[in-house]
């Protein structure tokens, strides 16, 4: 471990860490929005459910590097554009989340549904004020997995020149130098743990009733 290298490169490491966070977070937020919209449609129109499940699991099957590389061909961006990584990770996040969203939205019991109906809730209001809060634990379970997976997958982007901390891995390999590699690994794992902890806190804050029921 070469501590001098770390202290003389803190600026660069910080920059890569910032890139990494950006490349992981944007797809999560975008993927959640897509998953909520598609998931709500899939629950509202049950006929859409099987194709959504099939499509999302197919997307999830495609290796990350392959999807990063296919992206420019699909949406005609530049090959080294970070947007490829962002869109590819958005597809992964959405594919993972949509299943949880749909299962979560369908978890409302028929009695609750009827109560809402007889109280005059419109379908949209029922979705927003009843189904969505009930779906929250499942959605958060998906968010945690997707976030941690994204933070790990961003590194692969280093192979096409957009990798955040992954660039420390390629540096370490090219120079047979452990320090950048270990710094990258440690920061990436810490980032994943931190993000996971933040999501747990956010879930507590958003679902205060969960503590009361217990």
């Amino acid at each position: 471990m070469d501590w001098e290298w770390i202290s003389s490169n803190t600026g660069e490491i910080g920059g890569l860490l910032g890139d990494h966070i950006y490349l992981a977070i944007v797809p999560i937020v975008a993927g959640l929005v897509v998953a909520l919209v598609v998931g709500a449609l899939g629950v509202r129109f049950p006929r859409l459910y099987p194709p959504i499940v099939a499509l999302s699991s197919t997307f999830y099957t495609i290796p990350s590097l392959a999807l990063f590389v296919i992206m420019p061909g699909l949406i005609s961006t530049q090959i080294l554009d970070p947007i490829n990584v962002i869109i590819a990770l958005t597809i992964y996040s959405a594919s993972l989340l949509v299943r949880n969203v749909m299962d979560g939205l369908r978890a409302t019991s028929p009695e609750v549904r009827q109560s809402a109906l007889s109280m005059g809730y419109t379908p949209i209001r029922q979705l927003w004020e009843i189904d969505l809060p009930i779906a929250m634990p499942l959605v958060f379970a998906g968010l945690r997995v997707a976030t941690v997976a994204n933070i790990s997958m961003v590194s692969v982007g280093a192979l096409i020149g957009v990798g955040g901390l992954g660039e420390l891995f390629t540096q370490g390999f090219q120079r047979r130098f452990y320090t950048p590699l270990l710094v990258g690994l440690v920061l990436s794992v810490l980032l994943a743990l931190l993000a996971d902890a933040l999501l747990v806190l956010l879930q507590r804050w958003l679902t205060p009733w969960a503590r009361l029921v217990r």
Partner: protein
Amino acid sequence: MTLFNELVAFLSESANWSGSRGIPVRIGEHVLYTVVALAAAFAVAFPIGLLIGHTGRGAFLAINIGNAARAVPTFGVLILVVLLAGLGFLPVLVALVILGIPPILTSTYAGIRGVEGSTVIAARSMGMTERNMLLKVELPIALPTVIAGLRSATLQIVSTATIAAYVALGGLGRFVIDGQQQRDYGKMAAGAVLVAALAIAFDLLWGLVDRVVVSPGVSGRLPRTRRARDADSPPPTTGTTPTDPLTPEPAGRPT
């Protein structure tokens, strides 16, 4: 020439389909790496998963290894193993096996643990030995979950084997990495499309295995028993169990 045309041009060039660096050879290499790594990971993880699931000892390990493995970037692990052990097939294989173990271990454990207590008690009171209970009762019931774990381990390995081309492994990742260096998008895209197709093919294959090896009584694909079971079991209520989102939905899901 658009990027898509470059891809088509690469795939329709007959020279790319022959020789030791041709597409068929690269597919063969990729399949070989995947099968060898998966078999090795299974040989390590499956017995441990069975043991932990059956005895309940070491459950902490089984649960946490899966979560921890997700947080560690696979690309970093690959490079670390290669720096420690050197270039070549064996070090990369070790990395692939390490990455394949957690999903198999966790799902085997979860599958066995998920067997209902009353079922286990029934088996025990019929005088089954521990070994028979595990192999004839718990394992068949856990099989769909075990296969789901093998499925995600396969995807993990196929995906990481692609990246491993960066550290001088063969396989379809070669096209992606070499194409990147030669500024040949057709080559890169061809590698990407082929590896995506390979991953999907493996996944379909596991779906098929699932259909063949899982007992119809467990999967609910037996028409007569399904009706009988539906009559017995209470209607689906709230509280859908938070399934692992990575686990594929079992076929024939009652909607």
